[in-house]
């Protein structure tokens, strides 16, 4: 997006109104006004989502897809409204391509298990990248162990950008899946996902994109990307905890066997043979997290009302401001300096353990994450025990960044 267009968008981004929507941001922590910069872990919820949760329990609580009674019907309808909203949100072709899961991790495990059962055999290869979250490493590792398949890793350079030449070299007739993250949770890198998908498709290989750190920051269009599978979590996009989405192209979801057995996922059950339900229910065994499923719609409404283009423009501006301010701190080194980045500032300070900084910042009411961010291989590549990570959301401000910088300076004084 051009800088001029960004300026126009930023002008009508009403940060005061947005902040007012998030009641938790008004609280104090350790006697200080909260500065919440751990949005990569989870975001706070707007009043609209909180109200939807209360409304669900006060007015409609009932199991879905089961009863003929009134409440069951309205809760089922509401649950299916979410499915259609997700469909529109990521621009899927069909509503039944949206599988409601417990979260991004759940979606990846589902896919690794079910796709693996049908399509992965001894000697086959799965490609992931060097910057994956453990959630997009371990399920594939488990599948490889189970099947005698081999996990291949796309390396990255010191800026935290994937080596696309190496990626192309890894693709072969043995490659059965490419599973990569859209945005790195530890580094903030936005990967060239369209290019990754196109290359995999030339090789006849489907692609899973982990969009857990993407959907809340930038517009995702699964048809434009031509991605085969995509996962994300509700709680990182201002929605409830315990719900997520697995998108899959219809042809793939029909081709892979179901995941867990149980209620809702069957057509007919006898002791001799069970036939499975159609999409999407084939992959949704048991009573789902109904409340979270229904209230995810409120989070999508919220994101769309503000607009992802505007959110991205605002967050990009804030990221640039934060990067400049942090780099001015003596001894601070940014981990993850890719050209295309989103909302993550991961850094270390010379001579100081990230954990010590995290403890002092907490005393100042500033919430950041310290440690390996569930991406140990990334830390190993940089030969560091972990980083301090400030991750931004649409409600963060330059004042938050100034408080962070002042907090770090105070911590450094105490710790060095």
């Amino acid at each position, binding site marked *: 997006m051009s800088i001029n267009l960004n300026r126009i968008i930023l002008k009508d981004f009403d940060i005061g109104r947005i902040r007012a929507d998030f009641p938790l941001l008004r609280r104090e922590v350790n006697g200080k006004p909260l500065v919440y910069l751990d949005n990569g872990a989870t975001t706070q919820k707007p009043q609209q989502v909180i109200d939807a949760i209360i409304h669900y329990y006060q007015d409609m609580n009932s199991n879905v897809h089961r009863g003929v009674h009134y409440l069951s019907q309205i809760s089922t309808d509401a649950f299916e409204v979410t499915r259609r909203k997700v469909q529109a949100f990521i621009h899927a072709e069909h509503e039944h391509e949206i599988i409601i899961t417990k979260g991004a991790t759940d979606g990846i495990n589902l896919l690794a298990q079910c796709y693996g059962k049908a399509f992965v055999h001894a000697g086959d290869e799965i490609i992931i990248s060097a910057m994956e979250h453990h959630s997009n490493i371990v399920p594939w590792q488990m599948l490889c162990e189970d099947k005698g398949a081999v996990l291949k890793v796309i390396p990255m350079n010191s800026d935290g950008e994937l080596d696309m030449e190496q990626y192309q070299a890894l693709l072969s007739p043995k490659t059965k899946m490419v599973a990569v993250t859209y945005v790195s949770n530890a580094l903030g890198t936005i990967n060239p996902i369209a290019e990754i998908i196109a290359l995999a498709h030339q090789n006849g290989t489907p692609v899973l994109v982990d969009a857990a750190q993407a959907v809340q920051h930038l517009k995702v269009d699964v048809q434009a990307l031509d991605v085969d599978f995509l996962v994300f979590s509700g709680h990182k996009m201002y929605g409830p905890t315990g719900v997520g989405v697995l998108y899959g192209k219809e042809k793939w979801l029909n081709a892979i066997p179901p995941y867990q057995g149980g209620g809702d996922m069957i057509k007919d059950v006898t002791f001799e043979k069970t036939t499975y339900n159609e999409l999407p229910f084939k992959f949704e065994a048991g009573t789902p997290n109904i409340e979270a499923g229904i209230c995810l719609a409120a989070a999508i409404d919220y994101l769309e009302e503000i607009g992802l283009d505007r959110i991205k423009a605002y967050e990009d501006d804030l990221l640039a401001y934060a990067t400049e301010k942090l780099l001015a701190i003596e001894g601070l080194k940014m981990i993850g300096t890719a050209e295309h980045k989103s909302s993550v500032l991961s850094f270390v300070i010379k001579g100081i*353990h990230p*954990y010590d900084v995290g*403890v002092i910042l907490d005393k100042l009411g500033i919430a950041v994450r310290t440690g390996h961010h569930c991406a140990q291989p990334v830390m190993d590549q940089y030969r560091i025990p*972990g980083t301090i990570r400030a991750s931004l959301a649409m409600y963060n401000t330059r004042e938050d960044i100034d408080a962070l910088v002042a907090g770090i300076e105070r911590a450094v004084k*105490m710790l060095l």
Partner: protein
Amino acid sequence: MTINEIQDELIEDFAFYTDWMEKYEYIIQLGKELPLIDEQYKQDQYLIKGCQSKVWLYPHLREGKVYFTADSDAVITKGLVSLMVKVLSGHSPAAIVASDLYFIDQIGLKEHLSPTRANGLLSMVKQMKLYAMALQAKV
């Protein structure tokens, strides 16, 4: 001094510091007084699991008493280890195993530290007691 006498003394010391910053500065200072672990023992087998930062802890028995040396790569954690060592080092295995470490709560550490950190502290206590238990057989 008994374990409880040391705990009571620490509770008194900490009562001086009403401001959290002074309290943490004191903890960091205590870290500098920690009897350091010999480099040869800085191995994985002496690492305490459950801490975000690394903590190495080495026990040895001398004249029926357990002495701990330790280190950490984070200075606040090092201060916490130092506190634990101050309280438990130099006592009989039986006294260490039986000890009730009420001072952690009373100096406001459990309450003010993040859950992972509190767990780290608990892992430390657990490991020190396990070592004492193992050494009990040798007394």
